[in-house]
């Protein structure tokens, strides 16, 4: 499902500095996540969790190494083939990235519309998703009018509405209270039970203890342990 072999990532240098002078964000990552697994992605702030997720969601090409997601080797996949792959990957971003001028319903409907799903059947799916995330009462609100937990759940509903094969969540419980965090985690675990491969980045140790699962542990861009 996800296979990394010797993967390194170095962000482009800020202008004025010689190439290669910057610190690598990720170095020599080698691991495999089997289909249908649930993994924690752990590490301190700046360890490279978001960078790793960006590689997995095909939003970034590695500087070195092999990234294979959903059976496609990124270095051998043509750019025009990537959108179809991205539609099979659901992502909950650390900063949500809800479009501020669209209602919650339209935000959740966005992946379906991008995939060209006909309008007719689409709203029923969206309504079901909103009900699943406990947001049916807020469907017509703009994201700015939602609480942090509601925004988080809206982002999760958008990530899940396409029934992705791979679900990536970056700090999905970031600034939520314990009850809200457990609610989000329950939703993620439900997706996992339905067969989705799930990776959740967090540094909330209490949560990891409450939901034990295999973990990828990053430190300074390197993989410290796996399993």
């Amino acid at each position, binding site marked *: 499902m996800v296979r990394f072999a010797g993967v390194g990532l170095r962000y482009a240098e800020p202008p004025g500095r010689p190439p290669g002078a910057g610190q690598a964000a990720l170095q020599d990552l080698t691991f495999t996540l089997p289909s249908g697994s649930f993994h924690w992605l752990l590490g301190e702030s700046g360890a490279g969790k978001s960078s790793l997720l960006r590689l997995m*969601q*095909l*939003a*970034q*090409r590695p500087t070195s190494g092999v990234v294979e997601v959903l059976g496609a080797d990124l270095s051998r996949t043509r*750019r*025009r083939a*990537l*959108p*179809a*792959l*991205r*539609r099979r990957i659901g*992502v909950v971003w650390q900063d949500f*990235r809800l*479009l501020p*001028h*669209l*209602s919650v*319903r*339209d935000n959740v*409907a*966005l*992946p379906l*519309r*991008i*995939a060209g799903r006909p309008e007719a059947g689409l*709203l*029923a799916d969206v*309504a079901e998703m909103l009900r699943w995330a406990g947001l049916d009462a807020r469907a*017509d609100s703009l994201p700015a009018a939602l609480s942090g937990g509601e925004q988080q759940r809206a982002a999760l509903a958008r990530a899940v509405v396409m029934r992705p094969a791979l679900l990536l969540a970056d700090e999905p419980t970031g600034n939520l209270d314990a009850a809200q965090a457990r609610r989000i985690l329950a939703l993620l675990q439900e997706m996992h039970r339905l067969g989705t491969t799930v990776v959740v980045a967090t540094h909330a140790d209490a949560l990891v203890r409450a939901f034990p699962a295999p973990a990828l542990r990053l430190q300074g861009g390197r993989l410290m342990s796996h399993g």
Partner: protein
Amino acid sequence: MAEPRLRRPRGRDPLGLRRALSGRLLPGLVAAMALLAALAIAGARGAAGLTARWEGGAAAAMTVQLPPAAAADGRLSRALEALTELPEVAAARAMDQARLAALLRPWLGESPAFPLPVVIELRLAALPEDPAWLTSRIAAAVPGASVEAHGVWVARLLALARSLEAVALAALLLVAGIAVAVVAVAVRAGIAARRDAIALLHDLGATDADIAGRFAARAAWLVGVGGLLGTLLAVPVLAGFANLAAPLLGSSPGAGLAPPWQQAWQPWARLPWPELAALPLLAAALGWATAQATVRRWLRRLP
């Protein structure tokens, strides 16, 4: 499911292009350019009309006319010899009598009662600076001839009309180029305003064609509306010009006798309607293509 109507179109505009590519500036600018383009088209068309009309007249830049007997008594061959020797003359050729008779038929009828003069057509090496001076040189070289130089003036007008046509077409190209630049700038501003939303759509699996298509549809609409406005504004202006130009282009023989209501329609009938109708569509196509190219170029920076 009861859906409030206002929200649905918004969901179909996730990039918020109705604000990012707003309908205020672009149609106005494009309307001004479409007006200029319409003027240029009409100018090119008018100049082309003049060219076509004058081309025949300029074919023989000068004519030399000899009395009817000249063909028989050898004056014609001597005159041709003398004319060919003049450095200004590229070619001298006697017009054959059948063609002359055909040219004069409207005035003289089938069989004229008097013998026709001998007419020599001259093709000049270059248009003379001073036709009067050349006329007198030719008259001196061919005694007893009458020399006609109106073709020189027609040729000068023809050259002018041809350059006008070229200038009008160049102006049209220039306007099109400026329109492309204006659309590109507007689209780039739209991209800058919607950077985050574009990146999100890209990350959610939108293709370049999808994102570029959204911009292109919006740009084509705005530019098409502007083009239509500009063209509509141009119509009365062009009708006025057509009125002024009518005598130069020559009206059909019965035009002066037509009933007044028909005369009132004449300037409208002269407008280059097919070109004018095509203008907004061409403008929209140009806007579409420019937006496509601009957005796709920008999207190439994303993986």
